[in-house]
């Protein structure tokens, strides 16, 4: 299959000789034990995209020793593998890498079955069966079945509707009961009352051989509403699965070195202060620690927002979550996992979330107005007809007819249908929506606060003076740089082509300084100026390539802005939205980015708590803030903001705190999300108006006592169809206008993929 080839090349390039994906120890730790000495693990493999990939992976893994079962799920892009425990962990990740697929573990608990969805679909099946069969019987009643036949049909309808109500209806009854118990109302309260009263009254009518029974109304109402609810759930679940499939950036365990010289791989939770840990290059620091032995550089971008790697030596303090880049380290844990930096961020997040004012969804606000009005109208109808006719039976029948006809079928569909259509459009553009209310909140914002490193920028340096460097020196430098995972080496390796002609006798990485390569009698050094030039001149500040101590070329680097960053900010400003930057990085780096993007308000060196404070200050000024950030240090701010967006490369907790996650590199996702949310909100309001108009026509008819089951069925399905059609306008036509390239963009190069 041709579609698999590019992915394979890409993965080989990225592999760069270093092992990729989770280690065997980590896999053993996160696998499940099944009966019969078999272990199972589910891996996320984002590169799977066709049947060919599926066949390749399944046959490739199937050939390995000890593998009992390997099955690819194309929808979720996951591989489920079972192996016999006695043989040890097979080389699953290496095999996948050889086939050209990057694989990783995903968040714990993500492989649980989705019980809610199963319940919704079963409920939908039963309600659908009931609605269809009752409708068949109802049509024959409407077409003139009389007397005994009609009564028989009504009794059968009652029998069919009962399980539908009991099974499918409980989803609504449960939620309505929960709301009522807390003294609130929601959309499910009028739905439940309407459905139950319709059934109760029809039962009474049937027992008394009455002509009108509303069994079809109660069953089809449940069916229609469950469709809306299921679609809503499926959309959110899809986003949730896609977000969970992203690589975990937190370490699951670490190799602990015991005083007697032995070592063992322990889960992060079992690491105690004072334990010594071996941290290889490319691993993340599991808990807060201090360096005991070794030199290296650490990528702190995701933790503190600093864009430049930080050099560490014995005695340096490390924060959990930072990535060890160049040399192996021996570190001593100074805190248990629960007291580490990550846990501190979680506490800040909880505090921030509790301060977030409870947002009430549009549907809930609408139903808070709607339910009392409807119930009052029905009650007044009852009183009015008692006064006019003095017939209690007639008055009750009319009051219940009012409740049935106003049962918010259209209202219940008005919001989810639009949000499902909007979420689908965003999904196609690589943006995951966690929650429908997020779109409602996003439409309200007037301020956007950006983090810098990893959000406005990619958090990766890029070579800026490639034109000034002789081509030969550049290709030589990049041939050396290929041997390192340091971000600057990666940038050099990416910048040049034709590195194949260089071969070296030896390449060695000197942590904290650079790379040294030997070729015949020549010694090349690539790295810090004073080291590369053997301490001679140090006027140059950038990265130097030297041959036997003589400078050959100087390279300058700059953190690369995300594609579309400038355009996205200009678009936001055009819409009258204020833009601000809050970063934990150095003032100079922040000022550069701010001026490049034309942002006036920028703050550097902000601590995580400082970001939350700034958001609270903005909130106190009455502003609705959208926070866009990726780091661990942004997570509390993401939780505190009115609404938040994170890129796919964000830290695990940042991704779970954010309302939206965008998977592609370009920041144009932000104006697109904003525009889609605004349009969705407009359509939701239109739909609510349509629903109110329907009631304005239908309620008087019901009040006058002209509603029969046939009228109710026509009116309710008519209004639902109108609302659905209006909601689906969002999905069609406009989608083609988006300024995105049509072809699916390659998986976003996460920092992890580039660093390891």
């Amino acid at each position: 299959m041709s579609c698999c080839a590019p992915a394979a090349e890409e993965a080989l390039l990225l592999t760069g000789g270093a092992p990729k994906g989770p280690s065997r120890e980590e896999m053993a730790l996160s696998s499940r034990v099944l009966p019969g000495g078999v272990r199972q693990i589910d891996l996320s493999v984002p590169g799977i995209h066709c049947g060919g990939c599926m066949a390749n992976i399944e046959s490739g893994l199937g050939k390995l020793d000890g593998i009992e079962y390997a099955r690819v799920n194309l929808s979720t892009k996951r591989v489920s593998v079972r192996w016999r425990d006695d043989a040890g962990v097979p080389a699953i990740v290496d095999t996948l890498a050889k086939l050209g697929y990057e694989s990783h573990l995903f968040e714990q608990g993500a492989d649980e079955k989705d019980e809610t969805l199963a319940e919704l679909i079963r409920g939908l099946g039963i309600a659908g069966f009931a609605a269809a069969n009752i409708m068949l019987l109802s049509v024959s009643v409407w077409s003139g079945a009389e007397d005994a036949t009609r009564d028989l049909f009504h009794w059968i309808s009652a029998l069919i509707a009962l399980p539908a109500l009991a099974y499918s209806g409980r989803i609504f009854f449960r939620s309505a009961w929960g709301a009522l118990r807390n003294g609130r109302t929601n959309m499910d309260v009028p739905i439940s009352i309407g459905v139950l009263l319709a059934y109760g009254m029809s039962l009474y009518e049937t027992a008394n051989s009455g002509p009108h029974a509303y069994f079809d109304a109660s069953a089809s109402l449940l069916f229609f509403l469950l469709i809306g609810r299921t679609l809503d759930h499926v959309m959110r679940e899809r986003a949730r699965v896609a977000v969970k499939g992203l690589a975990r950036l937190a370490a699951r365990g670490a190799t602990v070195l015991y005083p007697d010289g032995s070592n063992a791989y322990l889960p992060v939770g079992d690491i105690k202060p004072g334990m010594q840990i071996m941290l290889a290059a490319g691993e993340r620091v599991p808990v807060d620690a201090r360096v005991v032995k070794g030199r290296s550089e650490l990528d702190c971008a995701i933790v503190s927002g600093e864009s430049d790697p930080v050099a560490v030596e014995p005695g340096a303090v490390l924060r959990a979550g930072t990535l060890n880049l160049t040399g192996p380290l021996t570190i001593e844990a100074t805190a248990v996992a629960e007291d580490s930096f990550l846990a501190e961020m979680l506490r800040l997040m909880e505090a921030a979330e509790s301060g977030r004012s409870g947002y009430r969804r549009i549907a809930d606000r609408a139903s808070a107005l709607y339910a009392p009005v409807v119930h009052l109208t029905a009650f007044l109808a009852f009183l009015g007809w008692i006064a006019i006719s003095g017939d209690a039976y007639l008055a009750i029948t009319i009051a219940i007819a009012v409740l049935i006809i106003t049962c918010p079928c259209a209202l219940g569909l008005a919001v989810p249908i639009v949000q499902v259509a909007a979420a689908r459009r965003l999904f196609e553009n690589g943006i995951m929506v966690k929650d429908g209310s997020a779109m409602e909140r996003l439409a309200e914002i007037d301020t956007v606060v950006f983090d810098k490193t990893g959000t406005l920028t990619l958090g990766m340096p890029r070579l800026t003076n490639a034109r000034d460097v002789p081509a030969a020196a550049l290709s030589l430098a990049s041939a050396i740089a290929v041997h390192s995972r340091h971000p600057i080496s990666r940038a050099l390796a990416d910048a040049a082509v034709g590195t194949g002609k260089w071969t070296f006798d030896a390449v060695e990485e000197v942590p904290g300084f650079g790379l040294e390569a030997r070729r015949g009698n020549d010694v090349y050094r690539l790295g810090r100026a004073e080291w590369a030039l053997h301490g001679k001149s140090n006027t140059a500040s950038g990265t130097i390539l030297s041959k036997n101590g003589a400078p050959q070329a100087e390279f300058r680097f700059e953190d690369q802005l995300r594609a579309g960053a400038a355009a996205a900010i200009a678009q936001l400003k055009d819409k009258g939205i204020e833009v601000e930057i809050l970063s934990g990085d150095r003032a100079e780096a922040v000022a550069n980015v701010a001026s490049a993007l034309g942002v006036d308000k920028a703050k550097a060196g902000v601590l995580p708590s400082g970001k939350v404070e700034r958001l609270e200050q903005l909130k106190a000024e009455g502003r609705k803030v959208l926070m866009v950030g990726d780091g661990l240090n942004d997570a509390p701010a993401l939780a505190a903001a009115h609404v938040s967006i994170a890129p796919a490369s964000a830290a695990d907790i940042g991704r779970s705190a954010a309302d939206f996650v965008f998977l592609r590199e370009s920041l144009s996702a932000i104006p697109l999300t904003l525009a889609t949310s605004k349009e969705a909100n407009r359509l939701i309001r239109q739909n609510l108006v349509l629903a109110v108009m329907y009631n304005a026509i239908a309620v008087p008819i019901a009040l006058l006592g002209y509603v029969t089951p046939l009228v109710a069925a026509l009116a309710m399905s008519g209004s639902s169809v109108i609302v659905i059609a209006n909601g689906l306008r969002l999905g069609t036509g406009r989608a083609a206008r988006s300024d995105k390239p049509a072809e699916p963009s390659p998986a976003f190069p996460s920092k992890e993929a580039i660093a390891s």
Partner: protein
Amino acid sequence: MTGLIFLLPIALFLGALGLAAFLWSLKSGQYEDMDGAAERILVDDD
């Protein structure tokens, strides 16, 4: 009228059969990988 006595049960039985088939297919995981199932039919595994 007499026709209804056997036609109605037949209609309901067939409907219930369809519902049971749907619930069974749901339970046996046939809806878990919709995209994969579409592709698997094209793969020869011998």
